[in-house]
Every structure is written in structure tokens, then in C-alpha cells.
């Protein structure tokens, strides 16, 4: 069943339009990769989904309901967990406080997140501002999981992580995919990794979706044209 759908969504930063009509769908339990070169509008798409910026035209639907006018915190409570670009941990809170700040009941709790990222448990009393970059990234993921979402959005969630941790995170994503009904919308620069976890891919170019299909269907031609590899 369709969990999230965007149809022809446009959005702008002030006068500068950034999205020129993005459409995509994420089904329950589906893992969708959102791809595109730098500055093409991936993050902007995610921001409109999370209602961190207004939808100018088009429609965003989540669980069958239009969320064009639903405020950000209500969208989150409907079951969207966001790992934002640039981590955005609450700098003045401790690790543990970051995790519990927005926690909602469910399978994910401090113990299970600690299991996924033991480093966080070690540092639970440290102020987030003084964490290393990678630790902050783990914290951001943990924090999103603690809201027990049905749709997890990862925007460059492996940026700046050590290869071994990156593998752990991809493993974690694979575990999530295998063991839960969690749907995932993921932005990442590593095509190789995306290919191994995602079911579908959507590629955006200059604020429009230009290619949609099963991830296995991405040809060399497509990557050359839209991803510049």
C-alpha cells in the first residue's frame, strides 16, 4: 500500500524556486533511494515532506491523507522520522537527552538504540556539541529511531562516517528492512550501497524527477547522465 506520495510538488526558498514538480511514491516497507547531483533538490524534497517548508503547488500525501497543511510536528507524529542533512543534533543537550527529547513509545528505546550504536551509550552523558562528527551522525539516526516512525528518512546519513561504521549503518538499514515494516527514503552518494538496500530509485535533476524505477534498472547511461559518474 502507498505510504507516501508526492505529486507534482513545487517549492521555493523565498523568490528562488527549488522544486519544479517532483513526484514520487514510497510503499509500506519499501526502501526508496532519492538520487541526484549536488543542489538538485533532494534535501528540498525532504523538507517539503516534513513540512519544514511550504508546498507551493502539488500535493504531499502520507497514509492516504494530504499533509500539505499539517504542521511539522503533526506530520512527525503521523510516523515520519527524519535524519536531517548536517545532523542537527541538539548541541546543548547530552546524548541521552537528545535521544529521549522526542522519543515515542515503541520497539526503539534507549536500550535498543544503544545496541545498534554502542558508542552512544558510552558517551550518554556528553554534550552533543563535543561529539565527533561520526558520533553526531549516529546520534541523529538514533534520535529519529526513538520516535518509532513508520517512514524513516535518511538524508546523507552516512556522510562523514568511517567505512566500518558506514557498513554497520547499511547493515542496520538492511536489518530494519528485513525485520520490520519500516519504509525508508534514503539519500546517499554511494550508488553501490544504495543498490544493495533500495528497492526503487528516484532521480531528480534541477528540481524535477527525471527517472523512476527499480534500482536494478539504473543503467550506466542513466548514471552518466544524471549522476555524473
Amino acid at each position: 500500500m502507498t505510504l507516501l506520495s508526492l505529486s507534482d510538488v513545487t517549492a521555493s526558498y523565498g523568490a528562488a524556486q527549488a522544486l519544479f514538480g517532483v513526484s514520487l511514491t514510497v510503499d509500506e516497507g519499501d526502501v526508496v533511494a532519492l538520487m541526484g547531483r549536488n543542489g538538485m533538490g533532494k534535501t528540498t524534497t525532504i523538507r517539503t515532506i516534513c513540512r519544514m517548508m511550504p508546498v507551493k503547488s502539488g500535493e504531499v500525501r502520507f497514509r492516504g491523507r494530504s499533509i500539505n497543511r499539517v504542521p511539522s510536528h503533526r506530520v512527525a507524529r503521523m510516523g515520519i522520522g527524519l535524519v536531517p542533512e548536517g545532523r542537527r543534533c541538539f548541541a546543548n543537550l547530552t546524548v541521552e537527552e537528545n535521544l529521549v527529547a522526542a522519543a515515542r513509545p515503541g520497539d526503539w528505546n534507549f536500550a535498543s538504540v544503544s545496541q545498534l550504536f554502542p558508542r552512544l551509550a558510552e558517551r550518554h552523558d556528553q554534550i552533543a556539541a563535543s561529539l565527533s562528527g561520526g558520533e553526531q551522525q549516529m546520534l541523529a539516526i538514533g534520535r529519529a529511531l526513538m520516535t518509532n516512525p513508520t517512514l524513516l528518512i535518511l538524508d546523507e546519513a552516512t556522510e562523514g562516517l568511517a567505512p566500518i561504521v558506514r557498513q554497520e549503518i547499511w547493515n542496520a538499514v538492511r536489518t530494519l528492512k528485513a525485520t520490520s515494516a519500516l519504509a525508508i527514503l534514503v539519500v546517499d552518494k554511494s550508488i553501490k550501497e544504495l543498490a544493495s538496500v533500495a528497492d526503487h530509485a528516484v532521480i531528480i535533476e534541477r528540481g524535477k524527477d527525471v527517472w523512476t524505477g527499480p534500482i536494478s534498472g539504473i543503467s550506466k547511461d542513466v548514471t552518466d547522465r544524471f549522476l555524473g559518474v
Partner: protein
Amino acid sequence: MTDVVLSCTKISKAFGALQASKDVSLDLQAGEIHALIGPNGAGKSTLIRQISGAMKPDRGTVHFLGHDVTRLSAIERARLGLGRSFQISSVIPDFTVLQNVALAVLGDEGNSFHFFRDLLKGRPTVERAETCIARVGLEDRRAVRAADLAHGERRRLEIATALALEPRAFLLDEPMAGMGAEGASEMTRLLDTLRHEAPILLIEHDMDAVFALANRISVLVYGEIIATGTSDEIRSNAEVRRAYLGEEETA
């Protein structure tokens, strides 16, 4: 040994009980890219901060171009020619790309106490700034406010600013982060040429780039350097694999 541009000797730094740097010694030689890798939280950025002067080490010394700079501030070190990029992009949000880079040129020229000259009418300044912008491929975006740039573009701006300082050594903290595949390969090419202008101490988690670029690699784990060597040596070092690379990268 004459071609050692930058070196640090037995640097130690503790945050409470946490030993972020333990007797770290490291050098950077003319013409090389020396990559510093290691798990998250190993102390790489902390080390860079101490070398750049943003943080004082508890013990140990830093030498740059033959001077002991341990007691100098970040500003003074930057004036000596230590160029730095930040792990999290640090730009002047309300300035255009051009202004951001021109500011760096200004800093390099060392005369910011001019009250009457019009900065953007100074030809040499602007030309130098535009060259740097072109080198990172931001020509088209030169008049855009830095705040309006996409993440990857901001990373490039960060590099352009470092270039504008015409530094004698670069400290680059994860310049590829968030760059996208295309951007990363461009950046790789750029750094490859850059090393001949000034050696680079490079922190990066993108192993493709590191292995492609680095003349030497040092691995920092829990504040200690556990290995230094060429790409092949590091790739095949079991301890490094266990602590950092994992299994896939060995393939």
C-alpha cells in the same frame, strides 16, 4: 628532512578522562598528500584543531616552516600560511561566493584596516578570488549568497576560500563529505594538482579518494597513531581493517 613543512611532536590532549590525542607525532612534507584516517571520534578533528591553533594542546609542539608555532594563535598561524577547511562548512552566509573568497584574499594580503578603498573594485583582489572560484567549478554561482548554496556547493566554496589564502600547507577536514560521486571525483582531481602548490594534510572517510590520492596514510585510533604507510601497506594492515576499514574496502 629540509622539506618538512609542518610537523607536530608528541601532542597530547585530554577532555576530562577522555584522551583525545596521545603523544601524536606527524609530519607533512613538501609536495605530498598525507591522509589521516581513523574511526569516528578517534581525535582527527581535534588534532587538526591543535595544529591550526584553534585549540591548545596539553603537551607537545607544532612546527611550521621551521618556526615553533605552538604558542601562536589560529589567526597568526593562518597568516603564516596555514590554510584550513572546516568539517562542517563554515562560510559567511550573507556574502556572495565572490565576497567570501575575496575576504580570504584580503586576509592573505593582510591589510584589512583600510577604511576607504572599495574592496570589490580592487582588481587584483577580485581576479585572484575569481581564479580560485573557477578552480572549484563555482564560476556560475559567483553572485549567489553562500546561504543559498546547496550543501555540496558550500563544500567547494570552503575549498576555494582555502585556496585564496595561497597557503603553504593545507589542513582539509573531510572536503569530500556530501560531495556526490561526480563532485568527489572532481575534488580528487583538484587535490591531486593542489599538492604541488602546498602539501595537504587530509582527513577523509572516502576511501576511494584517500587511496587514490595519498602519498602516505596515518591511522589514528583512540588518539594514537597505530600505523603510517603507503596505501597498500595500510590496506593490508589487519589492525587497520579491524578498527576502521571493515571487510568490504579490502576488496
